[in-house]
């Protein structure tokens, strides 16, 4: 979160960041010195010759500087704005445009339930486009990537959290549309006469604008997909198998749904009025179901990460295979505990406690450790082909087996 209140002088990146040091002369409170003047005993100055010889002043044991900063400044809105590069600024503007288009579709949907459902989808797209932009901008700052004591993994997990929130939006939107649809049907069943006239009126209004609506939806989706790489990361985690064979962005379920449904809606006005009425509801129901199932999958995929689990690369199976392989290494008696989990889209952790056989020498130990980490990285890192690379941070705790 970017808040005005925090860290006014924080932005590490901003060029005009205020100097962290204060070079002005400061008057340190003089009272204690004064009070001591009359009654000074012994040596107060550790650099006086006496002190140096007699070690009256003991230095505190030297402490190395902390490895990690306790916490890093969170950028404020202003700093974030200043840190924007040119292309980032363009992306930000486009994100705003996308939201505006979603609003436009929502208001132009008029009486068509399907168009309203489409506007929900576009809202979702716009939302995750905005998340993409924000993530991009925050990437300018150190808090984002660097770990501190406060945020051991930086703030990058926030992206997953935002994605999870978006998936809640999908679920909610799906439910909401369904209930709207239900109410509509109930109403039309309740009073046939009145409703029919109603419906007709809608048709005339919407027939003209539906084309415009779907065109806007398609255009904005395409721009976001190519310009922002919208949904790219989450799609990699999910990988819907039956869409995977489709070309480029169509293989991404999010883009697929938006494009598919907007094309469908563009065709709607061509149909006869009586058919239109029912098709409209049908499409709305299908969209809401699609939103619901998609939302479910996204929520699960991201929920797993938030629960500190590893689900990628067939998750459990992959991990078991790797563990078996590690166990078969010479010198390893057994694995005492292994924790494989995904921190965020780009980082996984593997923490192993390994019992090694007695008499293993140190050099070999280092090599063993390296072997284990390259094994894990190669097996689970999905480095090749997919273009995505997940980094594995491997920690191996070795204990010498004393039982033998």
């Amino acid at each position, binding site marked *: 979160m970017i808040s005005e209140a925090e860290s006014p002088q924080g932005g*590490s990146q901003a060029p005009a960041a205020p100097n962290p040091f204060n070079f002005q002369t400061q008057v340190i409170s003089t009272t204690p010195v004064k009070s001591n003047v009359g009654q000074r005993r012994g040596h107060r100055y550790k650099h006086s010759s006496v002190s140096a010889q007699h070690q009256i002043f003991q230095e505190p044991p030297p402490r190395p500087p902390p490895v990690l900063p306790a916490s890093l400044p969170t950028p404020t809105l202003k700093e974030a704005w200043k840190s924007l590069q040119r292309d980032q600024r363009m992306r930000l503007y486009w994100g705003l445009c996308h939201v505006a288009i979603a609003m436009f579709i929502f208001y132009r949907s008029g009486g068509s339930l399907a168009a309203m459902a489409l506007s929900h989808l576009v809202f979702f797209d716009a939302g995750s486009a905005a998340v993409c932009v924000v993530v991009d901008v925050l990437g300018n700052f150190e808090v984002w990537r660097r770990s501190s004591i406060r945020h051991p993994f930086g703030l990058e997990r926030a992206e997953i959290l935002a994605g999870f929130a978006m998936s809640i939006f999908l679920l909610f939107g799906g439910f909401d549309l369904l209930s709207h649809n239900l109410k509509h049907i*109930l109403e039309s069943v309740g009073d046939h006469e009145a409703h029919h006239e109603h419906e007709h009126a809608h048709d005339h209004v919407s027939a003209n604008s539906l084309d415009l609506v779907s065109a806007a939806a398609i255009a904005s989706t395409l721009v976001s997909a190519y310009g922002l790489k919208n949904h790219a990361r989450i799609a990699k985690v999910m990988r819907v198998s039956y869409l995977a064979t489709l070309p480029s962005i169509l293989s991404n379920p999010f883009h697929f749904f938006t494009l598919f449904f907007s094309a469908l809606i563009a065709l709607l006005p061509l149909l006869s009025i009586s058919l239109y009425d029912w098709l409209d509801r049908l499409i709305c129901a299908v969209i809401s179901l699609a939103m619901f199932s998609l939302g479910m999958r996204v929520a699960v995929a991201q929920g797993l990460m938030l629960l500190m689990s590893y689900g990628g690369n067939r998750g459990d199976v992959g991990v078991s295979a790797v563990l078996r392989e590690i166990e078969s290494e010479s010198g390893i008696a057994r694995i005492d505990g292994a924790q494989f989990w995904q921190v965020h889209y780009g980082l996984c952790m593997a923490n192993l406690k390994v019992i090694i056989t007695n008499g293993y020498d140190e050099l070999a130990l280092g090599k063993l450790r390296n072997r284990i980490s390259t094994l894990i990285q190669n097996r689970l890192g999905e480095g090749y082909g997919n273009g995505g690379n997940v980094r594995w941070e491997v920690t191996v705790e070795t204990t010498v087996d004393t039982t033998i």
Partner: protein
Amino acid sequence: MDTSYSLPSSALPHAHRAHTRSQPPSLNNTWRMTVSSDSLPSQLEDDEDGCGDHDHDHDHGHSHSHLRSKGYSHSPPPLSPSFLHAHSYSYPHHGRSGSQASNASATMLQEKPLVGGIESRSQGRRNRYTPEGIDETTHNHAHNHTHSHDHSHDHDHDHDHDHEHNHNHDKHFPSHLHSHSHDHSHDHDHDHDHHHDHDHSHGVGTSTGHSHGSERSLFTRAILPYTVGWPILYSILAEKDSRRIFYFMTLNFGFMIIQAFYGYVTDSLGLLSDSIHMFFDCVALLVGLLAAVMSKWPKSQRFPYGFGKVETLSGFANGILLMLLSVEIAFEAFERLWEGTQTKRLGELFVVSSLGLAVNLVGMMAFGHHHHGHDHGHSHGHSHGHSHGEKHDHGCGSHSGHSHGHDHGHDHENENMRGIYLHVLADTLGSVSVIVSTVLTSFWGWSGWDPLASCFIATLIFLSAQPLVFSSAKRLLLTVPEGVEYNLRNILAGIGQQRGVVSYATPKFWMDDHGGEKLLGIVHVTVARGAALEDTKDRVREYLLKEGIDAVIQVERDGDNGCWCTRGRALVNPPQMSKQF
């Protein structure tokens, strides 16, 4: 009995077990004696104000009459291990705390603000050793009783117990109160008779058996044996939180069915759409229930840190959902205001929303006390006043005791329950706003009341969901809270002080979800040439364990730069330096 034991044991929070042993049997005996001699009531009355009196009276009367017969009958239900927990737990702390309380006299009760559970605990311990404690042995006993009751939570039975002693409890363990709420719905059915039974048994000294019974409402105990065949259902009913959610969900669902049926029969759109709304509530509750059940699942290879975060996740989801809902409500309200839609069928709307309000009020009571420290005071008062006549209030009082034990076991704050509570609260507010706006509209014909009320409620919901979302987001981001961070910095600096350690790298620590201030994490330690790797690792491990950190420690020889942590350092540090200056 055996089978029932085996099932829940896995589900139970760890904390409880430890306590069981600690319970000194002697306490029970002494207590018994005091009761029979009637010395206790008089003493208590002296010390404490009127509220105390109620309790006592109750106990005595009951205990005598029922003791034997009922006590026995109940003891079988005790199946659940949880009972044991409750007992044991209460004894150590309460006994002491009780004595303290009595010493302080009734005034303390009121004066003592709601202290954190931990604080009160420690107080209790301290008091143990004071001379005062000795003087007031009788008092202590009395207290102990209460405790056992509290644990039992349960509603029905407990009440009597609670009341007697409640005073002490409240003062010391404000936190307890939280949990109480659960059982309310249950309790109603059966409470009175049972109350007595329980009390009696206590008096007799079969405290364990009693405590068991008291933990759950009669209703729960009645159906529990039948659910052994369905492990899922059993595990839901065996746990306090999930049980509460489950019962309320059932109530909600039943109400939804009735509403939908009547709506269909009478062709009423208002009823039908409200039942759709109810259905969504049920779904939200179902998610919460799922989270409550899942949170008890053990660690596995797939979930190396267990499911402690599930409840936080569900709380987060609930918070987001509420925010979305409030935005939608506000949207619709503006739309209506814009179009000037007239609200139709006021009467029907009024009836429907009052019914919804009733259901949600039950839910509010069920979940209400959970997270607020403040409520303690409240519940207390209630329990006293009502103990005689009303089952409801009793339930509350008893609950509190329970929750305490539980809460400690898992986590200070349960985001799941908080999310559900907020959801129910939002629904209640919604019903209230509809009722108010229909009344206003029927008096003054202006159609703007409803949108106005909706907007108001929407803001309220949004604001109330905000803190929940933020706190759960922080936990999900693995943020180390401020107080812990401060300690952690010192602890980390201490790693460098260990013999043989040259430096350490990539310390990453995060909170363990299973309670307390414990941390989990990793650290890479560089060991000086000449020091044994193994010994140094053991030293660091011991040091960290002493500080409450369970870490995976990788030891590297000084100068061996093979690990990624050194690469990371080389990469990360220079740019950082340049950025900072």
